[in-house]
């Protein structure tokens, strides 16, 4: 598996944990276990996103790393497979 796919996989996994804990915490706002799982996932996501964007371009249209050339439309769209 190439590094770009690997990083997107890390981001997707972290995103899912962040999404899932958010859903759970909406109705269980004091659950320390969920808060802790979420903290780790957010850290993991931040690391993976920073690495991804430094090498492969913007992940969202509000990325900090736009660089000297707008890379938002240059990389493949997700449905291109």
């Amino acid at each position: 598996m190439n590094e770009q796919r690997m990083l997107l996989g890390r981001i997707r996994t972290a995103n899912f944990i962040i999404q899932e804990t958010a859903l759970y915490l909406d109705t269980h706002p004091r659950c320390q276990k969920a808060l802790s799982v979420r903290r780790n996932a957010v850290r993991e996501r931040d690391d993976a996103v920073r690495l991804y964007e430094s090498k492969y371009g913007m992940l969202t249209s509000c990325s900090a790393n736009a660089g000297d050339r707008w890379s938002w439309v240059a990389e493949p769209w997700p449905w291109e497979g």
Partner: protein
Amino acid sequence: MWIYEKTLQYPVKIKNPDPALAQLIITQLGGPDGELGASMRYLNQRYSMPYREIVGTLTDVGTEELGHMEMISTIVTQLTRNLTPEQIEKSGFAPYFVDHTTGVYPVSAAGVPFDIKYIAVKGDAITDLNEDLAAEQKARTTYDNLLRLIADPDVCDPIRFLREREVVHYQRFGEALRVVQDNLDARNFYGYNPEFDKKS
């Protein structure tokens, strides 16, 4: 994948309720030229669009339209706060109230529920972008018509912002159409459909 940000694109702070006005403005959520149709139109047209930069335009405008749905819904909500039964009856809001209370349900000004037939996805870059250009102008006209009927500056202000965005989107879609045509044979733009046919 989308991430929700807990802020409106442009602030909405309406002090005085006006249910009759809410019933008109809700058309820009669920009416034929509303923001719900706008976002569905662009986000669905993206997948077969062969030019990356235009996928960008469709994605980014379609995403912004989701934010506009939220602004219209906020305006409707703030215009229908703290209503008395008397206000509901006198304002003509009663038919909507009976069916939806003060919940936000996507209907047109005439009360017709949202219909996906308001949008088109033809799978042809020139055709779809012309649909998008027309859609932005129809939304702009609707905002102009609303502005003729609105006196409250608290309501005018965000509606003017939304109207201005229609003009900007029209401009961007015009550029997108130019990009498509630059990629086609200038002697016959309709010689093949870049979303389906292979370039000969």
